[in-house]
């Protein structure tokens, strides 16, 4: 960890004001991201996992300043982004790009593939000559496995997997350092999903990219990520190297998530108890540890005291009982 991180996130909060129920509603605060801190190292893939409502997508958008942070700090190569004025943010947008879940919904249906991929170049590198821009678009199309002949086609002429290649090309055309991938393969069919995952890994190797890979599918994340961050109700539960996390998860929530993934082998079919508490409302978080209402290890301390993210055997875990799991 000697070289400085590409992205440093410290005590990030993203809160949304919400109207309470009733005729004279009170104002409630939804803590979508609550005191989240982590680093992303240059060249790595950081996986971000958790159930719906855990803040995965809010976090990706807040990192790119698509939604404002309420408090805390996000630094890209040492430059603080949360307080940066819009005009000063523009050059930095070239360094940070995003790939979305639904490829067809995130592409303008009235623009051709060439126009879609050229748009970030026009916006972020307005000085670029037209000929050079075209060259760049064609080269990027080739990198992601699109044919030059497809440049004048429209998004609806493409299948989901091909459309996701367009989304990837649009993100990569400005040659970013960091790409935030928000569930990029969740909407794709099994046979196409593996093609896109392999493509993302190839592009990372060829262009020295860094990814934040947000997904709910733990098996996919294990395949692509070097480190994994587990979120629950807007808080970090665990951040650990991939192999350590999957071999020996220290947080009870990580264990719950892993145990629920169905294995495609009937001989290994597992039966989970029929009832277990669901996610509490994010508007009324439990005291102490957010996970305690579903945790088999919860005790009085978990009710009284919020566990901080602390280091155990070189891993980071927010659990009062992590030593028991580590032993």
């Amino acid at each position, binding site marked *: 960890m000697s070289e400085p991180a590409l992205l440093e996130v410290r005590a990030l909060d993203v809160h949304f004001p919400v109207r309470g129920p009733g005729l004279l509603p009170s104002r409630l605060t939804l803590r979508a991201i609550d005191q989240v801190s982590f680093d992303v190292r240059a060249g790595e893939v950081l996986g971000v996992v958790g159930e719906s409502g855990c803040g995965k997508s809010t976090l990706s958008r807040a990192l790119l300043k698509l939604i404002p942070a309420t408090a805390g700090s996000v630094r890209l190569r040492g430059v603080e982004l949360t307080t940066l004025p819009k005009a000063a943010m523009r050059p930095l947008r070239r360094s940070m790009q995003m790939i979305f879940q639904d490829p067809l919904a995130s592409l303008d249906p009235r623009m051709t593939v060439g126009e879609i991929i050229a748009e970030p170049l026009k916006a972020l590198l307005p000085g670029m000559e037209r000929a050079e821009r075209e060259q760049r678009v064609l080269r990027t199309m080739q990198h992601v496995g699109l044919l030059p002949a497809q440049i004048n086609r429209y998004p609806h002429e493409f*299948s989901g997997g091909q459309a996701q290649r367009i989304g990837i090309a649009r993100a990569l055309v400005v040659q970013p350092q960091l790409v935030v991938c928000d569930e990029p393969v969740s909407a794709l069919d099994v*046979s*196409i999903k593996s093609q896109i995952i392999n493509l993302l890994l190839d592009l990372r190797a060829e262009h020295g990219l860094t990814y934040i890979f947000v997904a709910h599918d733990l098996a996919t994340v294990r395949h692509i990520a070097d480190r994994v961050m587990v979120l629950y109700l807007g808080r970090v539960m665990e951040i650990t190297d991939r192999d350590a996390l999957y071999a020996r998860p220290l947080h009870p929530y990580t264990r719950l998530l892993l145990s629920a993934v169905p294995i495609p082998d*009937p001989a290994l079919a597992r039966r989970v108890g029929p009832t277990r508490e669901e996610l509490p409302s994010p508007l009324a978080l439990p005291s102490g540890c957010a996970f305690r209402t579903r945790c088999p290890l919860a005790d009085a301390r978990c009710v009284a005291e919020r566990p901080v993210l602390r280091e155990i055997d070189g891993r980071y875990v927010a659990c009062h009982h992590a030593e028991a799991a580590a032993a």
Partner: protein
Amino acid sequence: MTASLLEIRNLAVRFTTGDGPVYAVNDLDLQVRRGEVLGMVGESGSGKSQTWLAIMGLLAKNGRAEGSVRLGGEEILNLPQRALTRLRGARMAMIFQDPMTAMNPFLTVGRQMTEVLEWHRGMSRREARARCIGALESVHIADAAQRLSMYPHEFSGGMRQRVMIATALLTEPQLLICDEPTTALDVTVQAQILALLDELRQRFGTAIVLVTHDLGVIAQLADRVIVMYAGRQVEQAEVHTLYGAYRHPYTEGLLRSVPRLDQPRSARLATIPGRPPDLARRPAGCPFEPRCAYASELCRQQMPPLVSLGEAHLRACHYDGALGPQGREA
């Protein structure tokens, strides 16, 4: 229990579109046995959902179904609307991926549930209400009586799916069709819903058709599995045979391209090259041929018929050699 509950013969589903006909399901023959869980797996456009929508009489307006579907010996395909309405709910029911869109947001859950019993069973509101409370309890919803006066949006996704299952089972149907019942849910909730379906099948002896793209989900619950590709059945087998001794190259491709937590991580995922099939085209040969590593000239020219390999194992493929790495190099 080999008696078949549902018999599908020669089912074809076609849609008329502005760009010409789309062949969604072709020459489909299959049976659902009493009390079994039949898994149907395939990707988008495989015809897995359209098959069951056709049987329920729920095809889009531009869709047409042909062939024969018998439920307990009685022909039910393309029944007039009134007969279908009596059948649906009473003898077979279907639940969907997104329970929110299958419910009426303006009616309480209780109203939507009691309606089923008043309509199909002629029960009084009060009688129906008591039955609905029991039904919600059987899908492990706490405070069932209070829950009945709540609206769908007041439930979480997993709870809504439980309500849908409870509603579907109110009339004790012989067949419950579940179309991607857990796809919109988190893995933790998915595990609960799968456990619930398994429990209900054992308690009530309901036959379940589980339609999904997820081979992990099928492995948890199914007794037999049908693999669909481009509107055709390409392989059918008992669940352990399908995962352990599959004989179709597409089944192999699907199983190999899923990242799995129970196996060592590989540097690269296996893929199925190429693109999903175009259902507007009807190739003379095997629809999987353009993406198949084992394809030969015969596969381009002739559609492989579905043939028995013995032991209730069927497949539609011309290739006779070994699958796996050896087979591909040969």
